[in-house]
């Protein structure tokens, strides 16, 4: 976790009220895992005041794996990250108006990520709405690992990806993971129904690990599906945050068992599906 200035490379509309932000900075903040996030301060004024959290939807770091030095003083490696976000209020509106070349104050990588499936598990990925952001990163990272491990593993299992949108007109113009099934509420594109419906009819019979990010009712349904089928599941939750680093206790989510709360920022945002009471009032 570091605080750093990031440069905006691109800030493009990808759907009605959705944007993709490309950021770049001198490496050194650490490499994010899928599911982790950054907080950004969209302006230096006091209104809007608080930083906003954004999950990584992609990341490219230094090619240090090739045995090259990670950094040199004359030409530090640049990290590049993509964040998919929705314009919801004043802060995201301001962010959407920042042009390439602008700089934003960033803190990250923050929180706990999705982790990865075991070699014999089929990863099943379910996204709803803007929740697709971190899942793009997860699907890409799973694919990259599969490539890297191909020598060791005979037949690596491809993930099943189902992404839900309200209708065809809201499909984002962004590359979706290979083979992703598009689900729409009104059937105007792809499968008519929710990703949960699709997965419950098309899920593999073997060992499976479920990943999800989307609105709370969807996460609740995914948690129930995982419990029914006996799948381990990792779900990414959303909650209002003030600090983003675990200090303020603002982003509480009710625990599934016993009294008490977990912090979306530091204990999550990705949790085991059994850890949270997904039906508690958000």
């Amino acid at each position: 976790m570091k605080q750093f200035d990031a440069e905006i490379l691109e800030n493009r509309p990808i759907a009605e009220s959705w944007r993709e932000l490309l950021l770049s900075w001198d490496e050194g903040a650490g490499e994010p895992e899928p599911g982790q996030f950054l907080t950004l301060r969209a302006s230096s004024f006091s209104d809007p005041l608080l930083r906003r959290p954004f999950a990584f939807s992609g990341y490219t770091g230094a090619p240090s794996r090739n045995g090259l030095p990670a950094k040199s003083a004359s030409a530090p490696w640049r990290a590049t990250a993509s964040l998919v976000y929705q314009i919801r209020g004043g802060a995201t509106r301001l962010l959407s108006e920042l042009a390439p070349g602008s700089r934003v104050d960033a803190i990250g990588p923050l929180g706990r990520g999705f982790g990865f499936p075991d070699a014999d598990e089929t990863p099943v990925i379910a996204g709803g709405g803007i929740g697709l952001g971190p899942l793009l990163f997860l699907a890409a990272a799973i694919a990259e690992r599969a490539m890297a491990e191909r020598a060791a593993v005979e037949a690596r299992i491809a993930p099943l990806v189902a992404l839900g949108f309200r209708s065809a007109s809201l499909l984002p113009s962004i590359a979706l993971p290979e083979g992703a099934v598009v689900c729409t509420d009104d059937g105007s594109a792809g499968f008519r129904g929710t990703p949960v419906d699709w997965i419950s009819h098309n899920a593999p019979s073997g060992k499976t690990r479920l990943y999800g990010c989307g609105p709370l009712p969807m996460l609740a349904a995914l948690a129930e599906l995982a419990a029914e089928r006996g799948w381990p599941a990792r779900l990414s939750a959303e909650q209002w945050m003030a600090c983003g680093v675990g200090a303020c206790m603002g982003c509480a989510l009710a625990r599934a068992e016993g009294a008490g709360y977990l912090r979306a920022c530091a204990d999550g945002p990705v949790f085991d599906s059994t850890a949270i009471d997904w039906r508690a009032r958000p």
Partner: protein
Amino acid sequence: MKPSLSVSIGGLVMSNPVGLASGTFGYGSEYDQLIDVDSVGALYTKAVTIEPRPGNPAPRIVETPSGMLNSIGLANPGIESFLAEKLPELRLRRCAVVVNVAGSTEEEYLEVVRRIESAAGPGIPGGSGADAYEINVSCPNVRHGGLSFGTDPEQVERLTRALRDITTRPLIVKLTPNVADIAEIAKAAEAGGADAVSCINTLVGMVIDVGKKRPVLAMGKGGLSGPAVRPVGVACCYRAARTVRIPVIGLGGIMGADDALQYFLAGARAVQVGTGTFVDPRCALRVLEGVEAWMSANSVARVEDIAALLED
């Protein structure tokens, strides 16, 4: 001329007048990767209560115009866990450590302080992990204790006196602005033997979701903080500083050095940065730098000399 930044609160010498407010900085370790925490004058811990408190249901926070509303509900691991897990870390701090204490009855406040007294040893500043106490009689987000103590001068005086009897460490009473006259409560704290008062805690506020026709926060009301409350904090500080002889510690909406200087001019001996840390973890250190530069530029030798410069 290099100004002297150190300040003394009830005999506790802080290397500089800028502290990190209770409830915004955990117990310190959360921000270690982002700033040099030991460079601040004092770290005021998240409130400690006898029993562990899970805190209030969510949502607990919502942003407001130039501020935020919170209803955390004094979520903390309780004194047992504080002594076992937090106090050892706090002993390693080079800044002053002020333990914020809360309770729902007078006895609970006393018990927290007794337990820390026996664990932290004699009141020698530095290395004990608890150099002073800040008594939270002003939390708006709990049903018992909190505000109900802090709005009644008699209760404040009695509680302060009872605490005075069991500790020689500096006692700082944290005051609420949710009263008709903060001076009455400041006087009561002074009469009970407090070494300082800090003001202000948050203002009671509410945000209603018009679409859902219900309050946004699960508990309905919460405490307002951030730049929106700064003028209230400065006025309370001004009033308290003209009423009591003990030092006043100012907080409420400090985001930059000028904001802190308003509090010093209003009569504060020290300040705390709270919500500002959420917005920028480096806020307190920026404030400190700016205050030092201002003192140099204005040829002010000591922090306590700033208040005399106010023309009113």
